[in-house]
């Protein structure tokens, strides 16, 4: 609890910026959904034959999980890409259904005698809509807006996975660092925001449906809406659009540290301002972003680039892999810089105690124990051709049950706590030592090399060649041991990645 307040006070300006982004995303998406959803709702109420298919489409969208929807939208032109745009598009799609539904229901539920009176008084269809139907359906419409906005507050936290910002940044950062305080630092304000939005809109809704509209209520509703829009505008204005170098990373500790390392090297040695889009949701998203220029730089692993990015067959020779991907990146608007100095190969891990008790040190010994053991792997590892399937063939592994799918950030702890007996992690994971785990040697050389290499959007590198020189100062200097130490400092000792990286660069500068 105390550590939570400490975290907030030491990250106050970042917290406000993320909160601002969060509110801005919700307000902008809800406003857009109202602008589109209310007219559709009116059409749905008046012409069910036109409105029903639209409402049906909106409810299909509603059932698509948000991460999947982000995935669909990412590659699309105009709406896609890493950042707020994709998040907005998804949020608007989600917000539409409740608004369409309640608008249509609100208009349909109006007493026919009132509509007859309106017609008989010679109101035109437009006058009837604006003067009678809208005011009477307003409480229902506000109810729909309330549902949309509250769902939006929740969905925005997930949008941090595609670099949209908002309080979800803390949640993902906390998940990747296995740090409950950081998770709470994002989750608590997000929950409070959801309750605030819910309560505020509920009050407006109640005031409106009390039929007797005190003239002040409309004004209060208007003021509230204006204030929300104001907060959003300030937050948007506060994110300046000057040319900054955008550094991305995937969503686990080592990637966040490497992202921070790239960012600080550029700030320190090239003197350029840097935006950090750390914790992006995976290889696919990072690669998309670097191709479109949504991010300028991130650190990839050579084996992953060869296999997951370029869909080439696995090779075991480190140099050959580096040569091939350098060429392929260069052909497609991306530039690979010199390797950083370590290889983050997959590590098959068991509890150190189990390994000692059974004399287990090499992967070829695992087949004997596997039928009694349970395994858990990250989703990517299960799916990739250089992942579990090849591993099982090479080492003839059959586990007691189907391996479980688990978030990469959770497998170490699951293993340490005995929920499973074998996991695939990263060779450089600081938690390996921290949690008393043991890595089995890949004695049949199944895993390809995963040398860490910075990849840069080529156009950016042409504009700012000093980026290449700045990164060059850390190339080859990050050994596996250094990486594991930094991972440990963040994962186990709960140090801030930025501070850990700054200390490392200070050491380099002093020539230690």
């Amino acid at each position, binding site marked *: 609890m105390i550590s939570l307040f400490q975290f907030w006070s030491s990250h106050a300006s970042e917290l406000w910026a993320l909160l601002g982004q969060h509110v801005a995303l919700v307000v902008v998406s809800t406003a857009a959904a109202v602008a589109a959803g209310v007219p559709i709702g009116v059409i749905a109420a008046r012409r069910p034959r036109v409105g029903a298919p639209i409402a049906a489409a909106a409810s299909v969208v509603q059932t698509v999980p948000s991460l999947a929807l982000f995935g669909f939208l990412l590659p699309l032109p105009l709406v896609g890409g890493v950042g707020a745009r994709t998040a907005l598009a998804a949020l608007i799609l989600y917000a539409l259904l409740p608004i369409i539904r309640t608008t249509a229901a609100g208009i349909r539920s109006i007493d026919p*005698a009132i509509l007859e009176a309106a017609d*008989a008084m010679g109101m035109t269809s437009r006058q009837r809509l604006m003067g*009678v139907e809208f005011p009477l359906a307003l409480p229902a419409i506000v109810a729909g807006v309330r549902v949309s906005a509250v769902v939006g507050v929740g969905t925005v936290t997930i949008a941090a996975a595609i670099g949209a910002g908002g309080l979800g940044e803390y949640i993902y950062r906390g998940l990747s660092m296995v740090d409950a305080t950081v998770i709470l630092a994002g989750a608590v304000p997000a929950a409070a925001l959801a309750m605030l939005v819910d309560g505020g809109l509920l009050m407006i809704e109640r005031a409106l449906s009390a039929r007797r509209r005190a003239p002040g209520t409309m004004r209060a509703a208007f003021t509230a809406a204006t204030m929300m829009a104001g907060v959003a505008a300030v937050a948007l204005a506060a994110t300046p659009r000057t040319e900054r170098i955008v550094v991305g990373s995937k969503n686990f500790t080592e990637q966040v540290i490497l992202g921070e390392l790239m960012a600080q090297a550029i700030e320190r040695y090239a003197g350029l301002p840097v935006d950090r889009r750390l914790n992006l949701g995976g290889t696919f998203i990072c690669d998309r972003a670097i191709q479109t220029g949504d991010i300028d730089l991130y650190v990839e692993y050579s084996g992953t680039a060869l296999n997951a990015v370029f869909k080439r067959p696995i090779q075991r020779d480190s140099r050959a892999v580096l040569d091939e991907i350098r060429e392929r990146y260069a052909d497609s608007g991306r530039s690979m810089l010199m390797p950083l100095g370590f290889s983050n190969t997959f590590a098959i891990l068991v509890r150190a105690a189990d390994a000692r008790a059974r004399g287990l040190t090499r992967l070829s010994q695992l087949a004997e124990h596997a039928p009694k053991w349970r395994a858990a792997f990250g989703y990517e590892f299960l799916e990739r051709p250089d992942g579990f399937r090849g591993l099982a063939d090479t080492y003839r592994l059959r586990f007691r049950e189907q391996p479980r799918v688990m978030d990469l950030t959770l497998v170490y702890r699951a293993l340490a706590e005995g929920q499973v007996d074998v996991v695939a992690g990263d060779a450089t994971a600081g938690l390996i030592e921290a949690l008393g785990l043991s890595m089995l040697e890949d004695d049949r050389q199944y895993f390809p090399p995963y040398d860490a290499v910075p990849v840069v959007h080529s156009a950016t590198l042409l504009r700012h060649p000093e980026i290449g020189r700045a990164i060059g100062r850390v190339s080859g200097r990050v050994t596996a041991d250094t990486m594991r130490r930094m991972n440990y400092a963040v994962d186990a000792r709960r140090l801030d990645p930025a501070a850990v990286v700054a200390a490392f660069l200070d050491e380099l500068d002093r020539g230690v």
Partner: protein
Amino acid sequence: MVIAFEGVQFQRGDCTVLRDITFQVERGETVALVGRSGAGKSTLLKLINRMLEPCGGRVLVDGRDTRTWHPTALRRQTGYVLQEVGLFPHMTVARNVGLVPTLAGWPTQRVGERIRELLDLVGLPPGEFAARWPDELSGGERQRVGVARALAADPPVVLMDEPFGALDPITRAELHREFGRIQRRVRKTIVLVTHDMREAFALADRIGVLDAGLLVACGPRSALETSTHPTVRTLVESAFN
């Protein structure tokens, strides 16, 4: 302003609601249409302000076929009072009454004067009632506001669909007296629908009796009292019980 039905027929799906209706309403005259539920009374009323259009024959208002009238223009000429009143719940009494003049573009000050004038006319002191909301009114008060609203833009024709049907007998009797007083002052052409022959005798100059879509009698009280048509006889007798 004269209303004329010429061989009007109206069908809803396969069901014939009105057949061969022919009659006229003279300027300043009050005509009551009487008949059982489903006899076609309300349909007939809605043909006058073009809420419905005839399937055969024609309806003339002021000598012009309703189908050549612009619906909005026609409805501004014809006030309308419903049984359910249909007051707008999100507007005060004053705004309900002032709505049609406002839509017609009257200057605000004149609208305000007109509201006070009409509330006075229907016996609701403006100081007390103008700022009230429909849900703060009794049934009788609501119906008076409905009448005021229908008269607001001074239309030459007023159509009333069971205007007093939902009221208790005492309030109804009171409003019948008011109706007479108001009609003597404003002299509108009024077509009134009711299922109550006593109400028709009390309010109307002439009475039309509808039976299964046919106009079986149309005339003053004396003519109806001597009619031999069984439906008319039943209705007339019901007025004396």
